[in-house]
């Protein structure tokens, strides 16, 4: 492994994390702190006829028990405001919170939870996606139009968002096509599974609340508290200690409002720490199950001339941040191909499952797995090598994509070529039980407003005050490098103040691969302000023009005359006695790429991709046909994520994303019983990949100039590696057994059954 070739990356939070001195939320204790526990619905769909907490309240050591009656009557969520903090009237999934208890110890809190009396009238449970969209299906929500609805969110019956992308005349083109292939793929739901279960602590002082929480998005968490508890922004402070992984699972406000309300009622600080079972079953952050029906028409040369698709996505009981999922999934099923005639219809369907929400590249791994497996079926139908088929059909610089977006400089063709070469596609002799599979994918970068403050102290040291949130990726750590580069300092001269909504300007936090792309641009602007001040000070001192001052290696010097120089610390010292060195920055709005010739129903911001990232993964897989057990031996990954500023962190994202992708491909599927409850809410039953499962991973980056990119040409990166891995593994398995496995995860049982079907056929 070429780790030693990579430049040194100083992980400022590293020593904390390896010595055990770093504090995560669950590690904290406040004076007088009580244990918080929730009472969950325990049934998937029912009308509440009785909810009696009096016996729970009477238990000695119980300080508060709260329900929907104890918080403002606010319905909230993105897109469709369909939910309340505590169940009100009807419960719609088994992990829905009915009540919260604060008690002197976790044991007493649990006794109180058990003493809450709830009675129900059961309602019909909706779990099957196809049945859920039928006209006669029972409804998860009786009256969606009774909720506040924002954005372009077409809805009816159990369909929360109906989205489509359409271009050209797919029916005519399909009718005229030389070869037509139709496929169906079904993906199970899955989970983010951060190793740290979430935790929340809330403490009131007067009318202000401070909340420590394991969130990826501190400002969203704060806004969620403000909205649901009807509080002004200035009264809620969210502080995020170290976060033990997120992967999207800790996006959105989760239980901050509940614990804030509980602590207010108990008049004591309260602490919630989730068990693994709760982490699996309760939060609104499950990766959605999906049914993909896709048909593609080819001309005689193997060019894609038309594609149609129908997608059903399992939204679960409530909208988390999922209103964009239908359109995002449609984009992935269209794929990064030149397709002149497209119609993809996607419906996000309410069920009585746990709600779906953003998990690392939401909708993409399943959509990509389906369409890339389908792509190999297309290649097979015309006897073309899968690599050649993709070379013929992918989008390249200047091409028009499936929604009419014209791509400026992109590197997908290079991703494909480099991954194939790295793997030895077509040249490496493999044993009979091994095969390569190839898959491509894409993912956008997102613009969101973000700000940064910065100050340089008298000793020349710099503090960056940022709303960015470090959940492990290292991208927040990269912000130091950006500031140091602008100021001519070493990154160790720069200290981060982060994860505190009272201190930092707002921003998206760790979501949507947005840290570097947005918070990075803000940090650059703030640093440029201080750099400008330093240049003015140096110009006066060195009797030169400020425009000629260069900041490098801890000194300000005159360009071309390195002997005329002054240490930056000297300038900082002087400034501390006069005008202070302070900077601030906010992201400039970026222009969203234009789309032409397509129409999109349910527009949710995914019909064009800003600074798009492209990926190609080639997986080498060994299959035991007697047992159906597939083992991934190698993954060759090539990414176009623009400039790579922090190679150690970038490689880490790709490697971690691939392992997560292998899990989703082979072992990670959420299983439900007939009542809508998860059957495998534990790590022995829901299997993550271990170190013994990890393949060799060979990663390369295509670093090309990208218009509209982030700092120094960087795009996002954290989600993209999770997109195509399952597709590559699927195609390797299909190459070995002659047909794709049509269900995700492709468990040994499903692989074996697919082999058996072929034998029977």
């Amino acid at each position: 492994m070429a780790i030693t070739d990579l430049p040194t990356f100083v992980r400022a939070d590293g020593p904390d994390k390896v010595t055990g001195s770093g504090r995560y939320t669950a590690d904290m204790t406040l004076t007088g702190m009580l244990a918080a526990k929730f009472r969950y619905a325990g049934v998937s769909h029912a009308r509440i006829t009785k909810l009696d907490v009096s016996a729970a309240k009477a238990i000695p050591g119980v300080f508060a028990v709260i329900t929907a009656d104890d918080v403002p009557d606010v319905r909230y969520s993105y897109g469709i405001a369909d939910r309340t903090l505590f169940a009100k009237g009807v419960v719609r999934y088994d992990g829905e919170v009915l009540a919260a208890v604060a008690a002197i110890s976790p044991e007493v809190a649990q006794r109180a939870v058990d003493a809450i009396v709830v009675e129900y009238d059961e309602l019909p449970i909706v779990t099957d996606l196809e049945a859920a969209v039928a006209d006669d299906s029972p409804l998860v929500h009786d009256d969606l139009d009774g909720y506040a609805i924002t954005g372009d969110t077409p809805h009816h019956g159990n369909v929360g968002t109906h989205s489509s992308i359409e271009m050209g005349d797919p029916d005519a083109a399909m009718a005229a096509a030389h070869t037509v292939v139709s496929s169906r793929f079904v993906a199970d739901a899955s989970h983010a599974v951060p190793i740290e279960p979430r935790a929340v602590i809330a403490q009131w002082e007067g009318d202000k609340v401070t909340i420590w929480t394991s969130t990826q998005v501190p400002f969203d968490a704060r806004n969620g508290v403000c909205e649901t508890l009807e509080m002004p922004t200035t009264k809620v402070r969210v502080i995020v200690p170290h976060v033990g992984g997120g992967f999207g699972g800790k996006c959105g406000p989760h239980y901050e409002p509940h614990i804030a309300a509980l602590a207010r009622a108990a008049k004591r600080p309260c602490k919630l720490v989730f068990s693994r079972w709760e982490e699996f079953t309760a939060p609104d952050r499950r990766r959605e199950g999906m049914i993909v029906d896709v048909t593609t028409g080819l001309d005689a040369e193997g060019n894609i001339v038309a594609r149609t698709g129908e997608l059903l996505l399992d939204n679960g009981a409530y909208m988390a941040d999922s209103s964009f999922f239908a359109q995002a999934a449609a984009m992935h099923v269209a794929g990064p191909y030149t397709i002149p005639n497209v119609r993809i219809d996607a419906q996000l369907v309410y069920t009585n499952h746990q709600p779906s929400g953003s998990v690392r590249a939401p909708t993409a791994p399943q959509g990509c797995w389906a369409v890339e497996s389908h792509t190999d079926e297309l290649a097979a139908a015309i006897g073309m090598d899968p690599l050649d088929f993709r070379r013929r059909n992918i989008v390249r610089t200047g091409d028009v994509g499936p929604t009419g977006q014209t791509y400026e400089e992109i590197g997908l063709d290079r991703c494909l070529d480099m991954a194939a070469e790295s793997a030895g596609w077509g040249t490496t002799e493999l044993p009979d039980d091994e095969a390569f599979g190839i898959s491509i994918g894409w993912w956008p970068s997102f613009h969101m407003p973000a700000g940064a403050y910065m100050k340089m102290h008298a000793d020349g040291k710099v503090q960056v005050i940022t709303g960015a949130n470090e959940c492990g990726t290292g991208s927040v750590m990269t912000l130091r490098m950006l500031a140091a580069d602008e100021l001519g300092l070493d990154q160790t001269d720069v200290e981060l103040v982060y994860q505190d909504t009272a201190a930092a300007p707002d921003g998206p936090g760790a979501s949507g691969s947005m840290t570097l792309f947005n918070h990075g641009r803000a940090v650059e602007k703030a640093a440029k302000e201080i750099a400008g001040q330093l240049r003015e000070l140096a110009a006066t001192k060195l009797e030169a023009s400020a425009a000629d001052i260069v900041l490098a290696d801890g000194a300000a010097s005159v360009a071309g005359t390195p002997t005329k120089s002054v240490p930056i610390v000297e300038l900082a010292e002087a400034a501390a006695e006069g005008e202070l060195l302070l900077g601030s920055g906010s992201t400039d709005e970026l222009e969203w790429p234009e789309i032409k010739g397509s129409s999109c129903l349910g527009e949710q911001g995914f019909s064009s991709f800003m600074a798009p990232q492209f990926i190609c993964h080639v997986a080498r897989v060994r299959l035991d046909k007697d047992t159906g057990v597939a083992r991934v031996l190698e993954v060759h990954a090539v990414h176009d994520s623009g400039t790579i500023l922090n190679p150690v962190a970038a490689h880490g994202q790709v490697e971690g994303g691939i392992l997560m992708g292998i899990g989703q491909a082979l072992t990670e599927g959420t299983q439900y019983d007939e009542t809508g409850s998860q059957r495998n809410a534990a790590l022995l039953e829901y299997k993550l990949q271990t170190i013994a499962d990890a393949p060799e991973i060979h990663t390369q980056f295509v670093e090309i100039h990208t218009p509209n990119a982030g700092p120094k040409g960087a795009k996002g990166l954290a989600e993209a590696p999770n997109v195509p891995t399952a597709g590559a593994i699927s195609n390797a398995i299909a190459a070995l057994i002659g047909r794709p496995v049509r269900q995700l995860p492709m468990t040994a049982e499903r692989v074996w059954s697919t082999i058996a079907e072929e034998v029977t056929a």
Partner: protein
Amino acid sequence: MSTDINAIELTVNGVPYPVAIDTSRNLSGVLRNEIGLTGTKEGCDDCECGACMVLLDGQPINSCSYLAVQAQGREITTVEGLADGDELHPLQRNILATGGVQCGFCTPGMLMSAQALLDRNPDPSLEDIKIGLSGNLCRCTGYARILAAVDATAVELRGTSDS
């Protein structure tokens, strides 16, 4: 509710701690809440994730599923006991250098499993390391850099002991 409180002494990282605890308490909870060493993490409370791994007389155990009272009279080592004062243990230094730390939540348990492995096998193959760490889940890294860090540490420590 049980009221079976025992006054016992636990020796952690060479320091004796008198504690009064219910017999049913698990070791990870006592380390974190009574003794105040929160480096040991709890990820599943079911021996599935390895975040709570500590050494008991040098043997790695999931402290979430081990009764604290059973650890009486034995030497408990946690992640806080790895460094020599301000000097990081080579495992700690190398896992940072290779990029084997991201969110850091699995790191303490991973380090303890690695320490136990190197104590019993100073010259492990990559396969040995994989087996030694297979009880520790990491969701962030893809493991390659953790593997490289343990391998590098084995080489480094053998070099030190040879000289």
